[in-house]
């Protein structure tokens, strides 16, 4: 009491010196403290609207409560555990964000008894008893209170639950106001920039930041470097010597822009950028899990390639993938687009597995479009995450209403592809039939050797077949019988498995996996702690509260969700997309955590630039190619990638963009590039998956016995995006170069640098083949002299002519290897695989193979400079 009074007087002195009116108020408060009656305090508070009065009363109450400080102890506790539901939402009629609400209680009565924690239902609700867990907060909404927090709550109630008068209502942290990524954005004004270093708007933002830091930008990369950079970035294949020559001859100021015109018109643009998109979608050609059966999703992959080539507006690109099946009069193409959601775990025929698949779809949706790690909310809410567990299941409800059909597609234009499987099938079938002929001849012997016990173990059907005379058995009966005759033959058993797998594969290739909305919605429940077998309260589809609302007529559905993602007020989709595309050109995004725009993500390095690009994307009809064009045209993109001594200390990771960055190319692009350089790349676009060579042991131990076709012909020379990807057994080369596992969305690939990669480029049979073809090309196309050949080889491999040092190094290597080969022609023959050529020709080709191999192993070859 004394302390309280003392405190008040202390406050009053301060206040009094500024506002004389407060004096009157002070008397009331002092009186109330004297009576030690918190009810009186509250009565006074309600009478007054004067903020100063409130502040004063707060001081009083805090003093009385003695131990507990409302703002630092009680308020955070209420915010973290209670207010998500018992704030403005008034769940159960109760709100705890205002003092009035606290005192009023909920539908079932008051929740606190002032000065008596033991009698207050609130304490019972958050503590539970020795056998029952706490009722509040429900496990799907928040974490339980810690014992220390319960103690705080008890002390507070025992002290009369004092409520500071400054706080009329506890403001729930509004992410839309607090966190940059949830704020709406508009096109910002351009900062000034010097004309010398600026090509377009991007440079204004980048230069403004650099000049603030007193850092100069880097000069433009030289012309050939720039051409190779843009070609690899946009198409994923290198410029040919002809492309380079044509470009160098064009000395007009807009030569680079004209080169870009050509690149953006190329249908290989879609292949290059589809691969990035497919990483996020978890695209793979099999189911995963133990069986890892084939999934026919290649039509979806081709849809993405075509959509990017046609520059389908990104809004349509999103809507068709998320809900193409629900568009009015949906076309086959729009249905195929929903294949985006057919890369999840699980199998829709089995309910728990189907639900697991829906969870995956929610996670992919969160990561790909919004860079939200909402997957965490599957199991629990987190005070820092923008999405509660309930909201996770509200989003889940949008995706819980599809059937997952397999639809027939016309593949008549893919006859060439189909024939590969047909040929394999016929080959295996012929082997199978040969075995059967063998078993036919062994049949009598087999039958005679059967004991009664053996016979008893045979299926009834087989025993009946045995009873029948040969001519009365149906072909099917006879086939099953002969399968039994050969049952102990391991090779036959394996062959049969292979045959069945290929037969199934052959059937499936003419299908596509899509979504189709059910007419009657399924009910969706929260899964308590994320456990599917533990359903909690029912929820309806709803948009997360941290993001803008999207009015719909009636219950919103998946199509509305898709429209919401690209709606004009959605703060995330455009920014996330811009950031991901930016990242592919510079190694890191403007927001480094390209997969997490949540509350804990770091702010963008160039927030206005991000907003500018996002606003332009949305404002210009979501044209993706225009965004790409803006980036690759900028002076920022065109800078040299050389590391600068002055930047090492101040900006080692190039966040300020004072230079470009060297980026090691992706697994597929390294191979695509080697194919292109060797002149053997099969540039056909789309179609069924291909199976270039891999070591046999990769497929050992698989439950699914589909063979790897180990192709050598035209199919083996297609781009990496078409290579069949078995989730459980990816191609070892692809793994070495960090291809994602397709188990969860990958939005940024790792770029490791290991001796295993060196071994692969030096010795993998693909690369031996590429070196040989490249050597043949050098000899055939470059002219007669060594010097010209080295020039051609360098130009082809790394897109620039050799320096004198490089010319000299390679010429010396040529001389030495040539002597070595000439000396031992058998080695030259092994390397060329040609025993008929003359010793001279053979040694020459062998040496060029060596030079080609050297170039395909340069760091520069596997790097975008």
């Amino acid at each position, binding site marked *: 009491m004394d302390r309280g009074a003392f405190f008040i007087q202390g406050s009053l002195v301060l206040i009094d010196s500024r506002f004389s009116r407060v004096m009157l108020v002070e008397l009331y408060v002092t009186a109330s403290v004297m009576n030690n009656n918190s009810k009186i305090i509250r009565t006074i508070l309600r009478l007054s609207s004067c903020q100063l009065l409130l502040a004063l009363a707060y001081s009083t109450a805090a003093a009385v409560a003695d131990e507990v400080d409302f703002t630092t102890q009680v308020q955070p506790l209420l915010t973290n555990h209670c207010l998500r539901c018992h704030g403005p939402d008034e769940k159960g009629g109760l709100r705890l964000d205002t003092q009035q609400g606290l005192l009023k209680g909920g539908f079932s009565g008051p929740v606190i008894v002032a000065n008596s924690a033991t009698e207050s239902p609130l304490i019972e609700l958050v503590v539970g008893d020795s056998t029952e867990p706490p009722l509040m907060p429900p496990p799907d909404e928040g974490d339980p209170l810690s014992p220390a927090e319960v103690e705080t709550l008890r002390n507070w109630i025992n002290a009369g639950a004092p409520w500071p008068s400054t706080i009329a209502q506890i403001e729930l942290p509004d992410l839309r106001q607090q966190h940059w990524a949830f704020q709406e954005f508009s096109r910002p004004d351009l900062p000034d920039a010097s004309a010398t270093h600026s090509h377009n708007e991007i440079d204004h933002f980048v230069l403004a930041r650099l000049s603030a830091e007193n850092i100069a930008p880097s000069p433009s990369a030289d012309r050939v470097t720039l051409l190779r950079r843009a070609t690899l970035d946009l198409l994923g294949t290198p410029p040919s010597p002809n492309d380079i020559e044509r470009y160098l001859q064009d000395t007009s100021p807009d030569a680079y822009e004209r080169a870009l015109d050509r690149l953006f018109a190329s249908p290989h643009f879609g292949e290059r950028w589809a691969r990035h998109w497919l990483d996020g979608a978890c695209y793979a050609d099999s189911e995963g899990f133990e069986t890892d059966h084939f999934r026919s999703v290649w039509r979806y992959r081709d849809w993405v390639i075509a959509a990017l080539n046609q520059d389908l507006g990104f809004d349509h690109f999103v809507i068709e993938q998320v809900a193409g099946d629900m568009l009015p009069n949906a076309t086959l193409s729009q249905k195929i687009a929903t294949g985006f959601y057919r890369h999840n775990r699980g199998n829709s025929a089995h309910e728990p597995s189907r639900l697991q698949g829906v969870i995956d779809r929610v996670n992919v949706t969160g990561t790909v479009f919004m860079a939200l790690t909402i997957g965490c909310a599957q199991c629990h809410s987190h005070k820092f995450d923008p999405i509660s567990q309930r909201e996770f299941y509200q989003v889940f409800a949008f995706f819980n209403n599809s059937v997952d059909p397999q639809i027939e597609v016309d593949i008549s234009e893919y006859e060439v592809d189909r024939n590969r499987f047909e040929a394999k099938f016929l080959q295996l079938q012929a082997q199978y039939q040969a075995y059967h002929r063998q078993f036919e001849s062994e049949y009598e012997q087999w039958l005679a050797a059967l004991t009664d016990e053996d016979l008893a173990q045979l299926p009834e059907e087989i025993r009946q077949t045995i009873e029948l005379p040969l001519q009365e058995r149906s072909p099917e009966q006879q086939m099953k019988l002969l399968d039994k005759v050969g049952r102990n033959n391991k090779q036959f058993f394996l062959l049969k498995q292979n045959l069945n797998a290929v037969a199934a594969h052959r059937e499936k290739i003419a299908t596509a996996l899509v979504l189709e909305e059910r007419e009657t919605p399924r009910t969706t429940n929260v899964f308590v702690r994320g456990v599917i077998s533990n359903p909690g309260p029912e929820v309806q589809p709803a948009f997360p509260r941290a993001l803008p609302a999207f009015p719909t007529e009636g219950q919103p559905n998946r199509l509305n969700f898709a429209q919401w993602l690209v709606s004009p007020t959605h703060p995330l989709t455009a920014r996330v997309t811009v950031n991901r595309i930016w990242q592919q050109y510079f190694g890191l995004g403007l927001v480094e955590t390209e997969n997490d725009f949540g509350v804990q993500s770091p702010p963008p390095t160039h927030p206005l630039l991000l907003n500018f690009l996002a606003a332009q994307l949305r404002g210009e009809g979501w044209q993706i190619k225009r965004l790409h064009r803006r980036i690759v045209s900028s002076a920022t993109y065109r800078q040299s990638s050389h*590391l600068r001594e002055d930047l090492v200390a101040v900006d080692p990771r190039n966040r300020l963009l004072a230079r470009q960055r060297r980026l090691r190319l992706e697994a597929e692009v390294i191979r695509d590039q080697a194919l292109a350089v060797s002149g053997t790349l099969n540039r056909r676009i789309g179609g069924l998956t291909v199976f270039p060579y891999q070591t046999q042991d*990769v497929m050992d131990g698989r439950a699914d016995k589909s063979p790897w076709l180990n192709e050598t012909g035209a199919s083996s020379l297609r781009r990496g995006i078409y290579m069949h990807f078995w989730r459980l057994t990816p191609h070892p080369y692809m793994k070495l170069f960090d291809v994602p596992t397709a188990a969860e969305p990958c939005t940024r690939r790792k770029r490791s640098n*290991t001796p295993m990669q060196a*071994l692969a480029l030096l*010795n993998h049979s693909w690369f031996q083949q590429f070196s040989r073809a490249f050597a043949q090309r050098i000899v055939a196309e470059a002219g007669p002299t060594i010097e010209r050949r080295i020039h051609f080889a360098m130009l082809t491999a790394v897109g620039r002519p050799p320096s004198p040092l490089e010319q000299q190094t390679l010429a010396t290597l040529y001389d030495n290897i040539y002597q070595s080969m000439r000396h031992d022609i058998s080695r030259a023959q092994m390397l060329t695989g040609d025993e008929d050529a003359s010793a001279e020709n053979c040694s020459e080709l062998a040496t060029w193979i*060596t030079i080609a191999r050297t170039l395909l192993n340069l760091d520069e070859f596997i790097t975008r400079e």
Partner: protein
Amino acid sequence: MTPDSPNSCSPSVSRRQFLEECGIGLGSIALASQVGHDAQATEASINPMAPKLAHFAARAKHVIYLFMMGGPSQLDLFDYKPALNKYHDHPIPMSYIEGARFEQIREKQPKILGSPYKFKQYGETGTFLSDRLPFMQDVVDELAFVRTIRTYETVHPLAQLFLLTGLKTAGRPSLGSWVTYGLGSESEDLPGFVSLVHGAVPQAHDGLISNGFLSSSYHGVALRNQGTPILNLQRPAGINAADEQQIIQAINTLNAARFKRSQDPEISARMAAYELAFKMQSSAPDLIDLEDETQTTLDSYGVEPGKASFARDCLLARRMVERGVRFVQLSMGDWDHHGSIFRDLPPLCQQMDQPVAALLKDLKQRGLLEDTLVVWGGEFGRTPVAQPQMNAAIGRDHHVHSFTMWFAGGGAKAGANVGATDELGFHAVENEVQVQDVQATILHLLGLDHEQLTYRFQGRDFRLTDVHGHVIDGIFS
């Protein structure tokens, strides 16, 4: 993609100067050293894996880290708690679980879960071991137990990253990277840091062998967990060793020229990778070819030729250490027994027990155990209380409050026992040991002071142990 920093421990600075001075000569000098010429001084400045001096006298030169992913149950294997059986099925007293954190258990007062396995004392030390570890009985006297490791992350990938990199999010160098950064490798022709995973590759695996901000050369090299462990070792037919040497030399001469222009440290890391790859073409086939092992050795580990197994990985680990590999990380998956623990734990023990015991004996017999530190443990342990499941398929949840690890060889004190847990094995009652203490101790045994092993990055000196870590008292002799 991180530039080298001016740090006395970093070889890259001198390498850069070297490159600038010599440029073209690099390849020839580097390669000369491995074909027999004495060029050690030069080698040290080119090769990031060149051996470096420790901070003080080392007890161990190599580490084999047996990483039991998922969190094996210390209570069913090593930390004998008879009270668990006595109070089986009783609600655990609230005093134990005040402030305790589980991952999945939500019961307010979960029930104590006894262990169905028989514990007996073995060896001269009389150490208790579960009957699920019959082979370990023979080597129990070699082990130094720490029974009170404390961690704070209840989720697998986070706890794994915390244990091996010191931070729960990916991006920091892992223990093996720090060790090879600090000491280099004793092997000239194999990677310094090698990783093998048996079972499902964990979600965080890249992060668990990542070089973080250190040079890419310190990234762990993953061997395949099926089929041939290393592919592409065979040169193209027709190219002999002398040709190959010239080719690699030319590759690196051209790479060096490129490095001189662009200064990208990734190029120098790649040059080191090519030098190593060249050497591996002759050394690695010998490493992975188990033909020269006796049948007795194969049987002792339980290795079946041609079949991938944890046993094969253990044998490969010995062969790597024998050849000077600094840090071998053998990860074994599937120890995450939330349900059906008593059905799933025994077969896993069977796969682990024999090869691990054989590895210790084998190392000892070859005189390698003395300077090879073997570490065994998961990212956390498992709870003394039951995680209820449907159909009585009971399990144990993640336990971060206290779990067991053991150390052997490499200066670890045979028979030592650090820390004790309470009656139920829930909390430490003496000597709580932090994850950073484990990291500091491993570095200490290798002759590295965890406070001195730093790397300057973005203006700050980073350490594996951050601002924590004390060398564990009492586990080394």
